[in-house]
């Protein structure tokens, strides 16, 4: 973060972190996930730079655990927050639903970042729909600055009604940068004081019914909370028959589009700050004042759903607005132009196919996948969420459902096939994902004696989201030493008796181990191989140099292309005439694995310079 006088250029996620520290937040927890990953490190950086001793900041093993830790601080009276990506909320949905009934004491924020597009996610789900389902108010920021401001607003709303409050930024807010006027950081000073009240904090069904009624009463109050009421963006226009209602980043786009199309004088523009619960007076007023209302929001029609007048409201349900994908400005411009009866200036062009992402040169996952395919060529390969999802390019990933599913899906396949027809079933899962959601599935596989092999791709980090520590790393978000959990012991603790830790960069040895393990699992039930080799991105230059092994392509290379199609290392480049492969020295990490990949032995260890 850069500071010029009192203005700083800030990423949306940094702005949210800034908001937490400007509002006396005393606990922040998260599990990394794009686009929310940068929030917690930014809180940790402020804790250090501003010496916020009363602030506890931590990564948790998954979103459910992160939620429950931060929620406890709230019911002990402190302001606290939990951050996650939208699919993380699926994992935390159990405490989320329940916390709505029980409510809070200190302000409690659930920051759930959505990813319309999707740019880096499994689904385009709308967290606001979850808020509606849980009966929790949600705030929808249009920019980094508004996201920062919504933190303090959210805390006050939360405390006034004793209810969790969701802030729902999208990728275009999280990963936008904006110059922001900063405010003073305020350390939280509330001493934890949990006041026992089993009828509330340990409520049984009878009490839950009572709490549900109280929740409804709270929602009625929140639907008239003045500070979160919708804002008329062009009050001078008066009362035209047409109105456009926008929220989140769609509001930012709409402001520019309405100006550029020069239609501000013929349409009323409203920005909704709190999409759920929608303010009662607002609903009454706009349905009374306007006969033609267009709603633009991402990704589900939450506002539209509450403006329940099909004869007046245009949006996703009426088919005027796409129900999938991002509402990009060019899409919105065409919709707004048509609604206002003017010409659209935008021309939507067909997208050109993009580059496909691939594992980094020297990535140990590539070596693991190559060996797994060699050792169990006709296998079913279940996999999971992380960099290693890219193993699909190598034909070594057949399924990816959600975090932790590699093991349970492998078990499901194993039980579905009969003993004669069952192919080898190999699940791959990263270390961080194993901690997050793999453990219960592995316990189940042990109990059911599922004949599957789990390969834990242990690169000692959460690589995909930016190399955050895992519970095995022994370092926390502040860079300080914490306890470390041994993966092999955890695996054994789940009841696995066959568990070996092997280096995937030793290609021949690794293939042998996988073959042995597959044979074992066929007869004896589940086995685990821990494929341990650190992520190159978390190694120092000295560490990388130490393992560097120069490789060369000999004159025998006939350009068969086996290495580029089966190993897909970006450092191996087939020349344009398909005559030979060359090594791109600027990309090659010197891992030396490709020496074992070339079926003709044309990739050879180079002479040491």
């Amino acid at each position, binding site marked *: 973060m850069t500071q010029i006088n009192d203005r700083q250029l800030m990423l949306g996620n940094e702005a949210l972190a800034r908001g937490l520290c400007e509002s006396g937040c005393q606990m922040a927890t998260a599990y990394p996930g794009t*686009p929310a990953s940068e929030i917690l490190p930014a809180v940790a950086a402020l804790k250090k730079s501003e010496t916020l001793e009363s602030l506890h900041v931590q990564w948790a093993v998954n979103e459910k655990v992160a939620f429950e830790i931060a929620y406890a601080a709230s019911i002990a009276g402190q302001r606290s927050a939990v951050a996650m990506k939208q699919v993380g909320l699926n994992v935390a949905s159990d405490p989320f639903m329940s916390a709505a009934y029980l409510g809070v004491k200190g302000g409690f924020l659930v920051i759930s970042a959505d990813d319309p597009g999707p740019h880096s996610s499994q689904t385009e789900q709308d967290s606001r729909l979850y808020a509606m389902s849980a009966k929790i108010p949600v705030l929808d920021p249009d*920019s980094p600055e508004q996201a920062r401001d919504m933190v303090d607003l959210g805390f006050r709303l939360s405390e006034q009604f004793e209810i969790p409050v969701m802030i729902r930024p999208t990728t275009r807010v999280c*990963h936008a940068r904006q*110059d922001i006027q900063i405010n003073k950081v305020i350390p939280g000073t509330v001493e934890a004081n949990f006041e026992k009240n089993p009828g509330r904090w340990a409520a049984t069904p009878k009490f839950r019914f009572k709490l549900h009624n109280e929740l409804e009463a709270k929602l009625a109050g929140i639907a008239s909370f003045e500070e979160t009421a919708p804002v008329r963006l062009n009050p001078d226009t008066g009362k035209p028959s047409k109105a456009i209602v926008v929220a989140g980043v769609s509001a930012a786009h709409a402001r520019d589009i309405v100006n550029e199309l020069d239609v501000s004088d013929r349409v009323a523009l409203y920005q909704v700050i709190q999409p759920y619960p929608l303010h009662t007076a607002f609903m009454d007023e706009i349905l009374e004042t306007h006969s033609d209302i267009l709603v633009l929001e991402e990704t589900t029609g939450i506002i539209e759903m509450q403006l329940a007048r099909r004869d007046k409201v245009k949006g996703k349900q009426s088919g005027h607005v796409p129900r999938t994908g991002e509402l990009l*400005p060019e899409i919105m411009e065409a919709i707004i132009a048509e609604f206002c009866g003017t010409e659209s200036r935008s021309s939507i062009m067909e997208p050109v196919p993009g580059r496909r992402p691939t594992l980094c040169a020297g990535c140990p996952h590539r070596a693991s996948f190559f060996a797994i395919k060699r050792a169990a060529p006709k296998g079913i390969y279940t996999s999971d969420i992380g960099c290693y999802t890219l193993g699909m390019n190598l034909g070594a990933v057949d399924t990816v459902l959600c975090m932790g599913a590699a093991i349970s899906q492998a078990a499901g396949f194993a039980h579905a096939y009969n003993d004669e027809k069952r192919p080898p079933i190999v699940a791959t899962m990263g270390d961080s994902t194993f901690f997050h959601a793999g453990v219960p599935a592995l316990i189940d596989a042990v109990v059911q004696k599922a004949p599957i092999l789990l390969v834990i791709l242990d690169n000692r980090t959460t690589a995909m989201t930016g190399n955050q520590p895992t519970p095995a790393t022994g370092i926390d978000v502040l860079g300080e030493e914490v306890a470390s959990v041994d993966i092999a012991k955890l695996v054994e603790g789940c009841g696995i008796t066959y568990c070996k830790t092997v280096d995937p960069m030793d290609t021949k040895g690794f293939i042998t181990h996988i073959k042995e393990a597959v044979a074992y699992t066929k007869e004896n039930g589940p086995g685990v191989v821990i494929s341990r080799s650190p992520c190159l991105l978390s190694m120092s230059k000295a560490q990388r140099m130490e393992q560097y092994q120069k490789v060369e392509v000999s004159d025998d290379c006939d350009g068969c292309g086996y290495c580029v199609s089966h190993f897909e290392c970006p450092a191996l480049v087939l020349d344009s005439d398909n005559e030979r492969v060359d090594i791109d020295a600027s990309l090659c990490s010197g891992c030396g694995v490709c020496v074992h990949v070339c079926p003709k032995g044309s990739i050879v260890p180079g002479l040491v310079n």
Partner: protein
Amino acid sequence: MDIKRLIMVAVGGQGNLLASKVLGEAALICKVPVRMSEIHGMAQRGGVVESAIVFGDASSPIISDGEADLLLGFEPSETLRALNRCNKETTVITNLAPLPPFTVSIGRGVYPEMDTIQALIKERTGSLIAFDAMELAIKAGSPMSTNIVLVGALIQTGILPLTRESVEQAIKTRTKPAFVDMNLAAFNLGFEAAAGAA
């Protein structure tokens, strides 16, 4: 103040995000409101990294098709791919050093000829400044400074409301101390290259 919209496209690892930060910092120094948008995640694994920077009084941080005043391409085929953001007035600056996409290196695609790329860009935009920024970066001290060479060329056009001094100041504070001299040299080489090309 006029709103100016800049699109920058690069392949993961080319330093696009650092270039954005330098320009954002320079905007702060010049007291120009700025909004930027970038995509993280999968893009960093060899995919395309696109940044949009809007200078002036706008609300939206993203730039629609046909709306860019400037397109800065770190890689020629990516510049071509981003042409839909341009209009007949757009100024395009592109590096000419190619990084073939993976589909080309595994023989499933053909990299377009450099002349074809330049002709297509000229046909559909206002003007084109094209040069080998990588070569200049090597001259400045390292191919890693290609991003700053391109920033130099961008500033030379005078289209953005940023002064040369503000960008040099931003390079001093935003890039690693050990690389400041190299980056300033890279900036200067890019600036001169654009002046020569215009």
